[in-house]
């Protein structure tokens, strides 16, 4: 299903940002996840202005305090470099850092920096700059979430930083590949007036102008520490929130690159020859989150009944025009974190009815089960929720639909003021980043703010999440997360609805998508995972 429609876009998703959103991370120990994207055999041409259409504006460019969703990462990667980035094997490898190593117990990490790199204002990229950013990040309400186990960062010498953790943390490089690891100049971070509006980084482009809600312009950095990798002279990002207008801007030649989550546009573009389209298969699922601390959904039989009463395939056909896929856990088949969970892949009304009867028996009730299913009214949400309502009605579950605008919607989830809400989250490149949302310690009673919105307390889940955070073995971690997905299927805090399409669309003159390289020359990841889609090395043909 269309990611944006389901809820909550930037705010929620991005945020997850705290650690991740797009651009999150992968464990240092995760294996390959994706195939490379489209490539070209043409020789790159230099020059020209690349125009890119974005679906949303970003509230600022301070990697410590701002909140970057997909659109934010598209822009930020042009003037900032991350300390780590993903290779084609899905590994978080050093990028701006020369090395990222750990102690035997993973409680201390050492970041070695490349010598001679300067920010565009002339300040050196040194240990002091990294310490400042990590320290401010840890103190930040947003980024601090991502740096959870970090205790402190210390400069060992001018090019070496030691980071101490409160517990073994194997996924730290993943965080360095996310917003928290995008290095900004100390002058920007310490500015009281321009930290969010005038970004200063070491990136391939330098910031030129930002007209909020309209355009942001960057120009080629002549002193970039990776000479020759960038080709266009200038990139202009255009904020075009209306998806129809964004596509029309591409078709008119006004922009050369955009992305869309609109199934109807993807379907429409399939028949076009002028535009190239790359359909991504990301891991972010859509689901209905159940408040396990509120009646009647505090009853396990009823929650399981919803698993069997939901026909994902029907939703995918009707809402995503058949372009989505069935979901059984936060990750899709093919992901390094996918482990079959035992969640039902098809609807089974008979089984659902039996479970509803079991619910009535346990609670001494009869007649249709009633509760409220909440959603935002964006996009095709109303149609999708009506379809879910009809599916559940067939097995004796009578939900009333409630539409709420986004800010209130999030508030309701935080304070447990809901029974069932449609939601989009999880599936980050490393599951450790999502652990915050699942831990029992964060499942406070209704009325109190909680990060575990479903308020499911489960000791098995906690134990497995701890293994996932601290064990360096990929196989052990994968098994641990597999156990978590299985617990989700057994406890049913989330009723999966599907996974929507997401496509990168380019005009006929744009090339190089999927060809980006890392400083070591190896291919950079980004097209088929939740890593950042690299755009700084794209080029235009005349």
């Amino acid at each position, binding site marked *: 299903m269309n990611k944006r429609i389901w809820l909550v876009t930037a705010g*929620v998703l991005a*945020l997850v940002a705290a650690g991740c959103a797009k651009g999150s991370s992968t464990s240092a120990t995760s294996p390959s996840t994706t195939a490379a994207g489209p490539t070209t055999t043409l020789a790159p041409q230099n020059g020209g202005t690349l125009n890119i*259409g974005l679906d949303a504006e970003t509230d600022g460019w301070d990697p410590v305090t701002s909140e970057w969703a997909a659109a934010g990462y598209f822009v930020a990667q042009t003037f900032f470099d991350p300390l780590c980035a993903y290779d084609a094997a899905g590994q978080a490898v050093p990028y701006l850092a020369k090395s990222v190593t750990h102690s035997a117990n993973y409680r201390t990490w050492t970041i070695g920096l490349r010598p001679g790199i300067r920010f565009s204002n002339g300040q050196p990229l040194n240990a002091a700059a990294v310490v400042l950013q990590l320290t401010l990040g840890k103190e930040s309400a947003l980024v601090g979430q991502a740096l959870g186990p970090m205790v402190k960062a210390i400069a060992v010498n001018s090019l070496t930083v030691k980071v101490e953790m409160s517990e073994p943390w194997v996924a730290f490089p993943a965080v360095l590949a996310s917003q928290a690891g995008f290095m900004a100049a100390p002058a920007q971070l310490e500015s009281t007036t321009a930290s969010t*509006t*005038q970004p200063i980084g070491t990136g391939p482009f330098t910031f030129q102008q930002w*007209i909020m*809600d309209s355009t942001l312009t960057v120009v080629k950095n002549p002193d970039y520490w990776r000479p020759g990798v960038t080709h266009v002279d200038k990139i202009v990002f255009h904020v*075009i929130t209306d998806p129809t207008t964004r596509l029309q801007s591409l078709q008119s030649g006004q922009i050369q690159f955009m992305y869309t989550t609109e199934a109807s546009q993807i379907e429409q573009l399939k028949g076009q020859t002028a535009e190239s389209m790359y359909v991504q298969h990301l891991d972010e699922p859509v689901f209905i989150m159940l408040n396990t601390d509120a009646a009647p959904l505090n009853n396990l039989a009823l929650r399981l009944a919803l698993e069997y009463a939901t026909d994902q395939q029907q939703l995918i056909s009707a809402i995503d025009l058949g372009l989505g896929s069935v979901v059984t856990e936060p990750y899709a088949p093919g992901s390094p974190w996918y482990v079959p969970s035992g969640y039902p892949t098809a609807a089974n009304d008979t089984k659902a009815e039996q479970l509803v009867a079991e619910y009535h028996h346990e609670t001494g009730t009869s007649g249709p089960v009633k509760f409220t299913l909440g959603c935002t009214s964006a996009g095709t949400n109303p149609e999708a929720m009506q379809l879910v309502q009809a599916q559940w009605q067939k097995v004796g579950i009578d939900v009333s639909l409630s539409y709420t605008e986004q800010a209130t919607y999030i508030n309701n989830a935080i304070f447990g003021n809901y029974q069932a809400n449609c939601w989009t989250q999880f599936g980050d490149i490393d599951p450790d980043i999502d652990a915050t949302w699942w831990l029992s310690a964060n499942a406070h009673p209704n009325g109190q703010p909680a990060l575990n919105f479903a308020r499911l307390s489960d000791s098995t889940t906690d134990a497995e999440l701890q293994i996932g955070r601290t064990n360096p073995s990929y196989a052990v971690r994968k098994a641990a997360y597999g156990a978590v997905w299985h617990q989700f299927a057994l406890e049913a805090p989330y009723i999966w609805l599907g996974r929507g399409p997401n496509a990168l669309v380019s005009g006929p003159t744009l090339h190089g998508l999927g060809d980006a390289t890392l400083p070591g020359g190896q291919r950079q990841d980004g097209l088929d995972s939740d890593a950042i889609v690299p755009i700084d090395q794209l080029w235009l043909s005349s």
Partner: protein
Amino acid sequence: MLSYVGWRFVRMLSVVFAVTLFSFLLLNLLPGSPINAILGPAAGDPVARSELTNQLGLNHPIFLRYFIWLGHALQGNLGQSYVSDQSVTSAIAQRVPLTLELMIMGEVISLGIAIPMAMLCSLRPDGWFDRLTSGSTLLLLALPAFILGPTLIYVFAIRFHVFPASGETTWFTLGSGTSPTIVATPQSILLPAIVLSAGQLALFARVLRGDLLATLKSEFILMARSKGFSRWYVLLHHALRPSSFSLMSLVGLSVGGLLAGALIVENVFALPGMGTLLITAIEKRDYLIVQGMVVLIASGFVTVNFITDALYGVLDPRVRRARLIG
């Protein structure tokens, strides 16, 4: 006359004051909060919530916050955006020129087409032009901006490449630095202005036509015609002015309509105007931006209506006399 203007001015100020007070209270009574909008799900962390609440000053009682805001506002300081930390005054000032351009161009297009159209219709009521106008204005009234906009983009941007599909082209900038205020070229906002003007145009034309027809039945018109003046001369010099009261009221009131229309049109055409700022601010619960916009819109609205009231006197000597006597 002076006391009349002074009295109206005092009323204007009290309206603006009341609007600021009620809008501040209502905004703060909205469910959800800037904390949730800024932190997203991370707002579930009590420590993060508490830190941000103190940082934004949201821990103070609502009336105290209002009077702090009012005190600053009277000194020209509308505060800082909760979300971007930008000064509210400068954030709004950056958006005003483009929206004003759009509104003025929309109004000029509406009046420029509606007035001659209504005059032509009134010359031959129920003639072919009148019927055609009646049908087309009905169509324009029924066409929402989100249908008309993409249709015009398809025709003029994709098919004929005459206008840009979205965004604006900078004509010149006000101020300097990395975030200047832009004034767009008329060509780049012509298409959005046409969309914005469509509904108004139809309304103006229909109202003026009706008033003109009523005026043309008056005795003084018969007198003018009997003196041998041509129909066009009579229409232009005798009928148009007394028929334009309703139109003028509509123009004054249409400022609100234009602003509301701008919210949609700016979104469809990806223009960084006041509408876009307001929508984003509401979504993000950026109260101070919304509050600043409310002050500006309310002030603009009452000012335009104040001017409209004053113009009645210019147009109609009877109003002038009544005010003098009063």
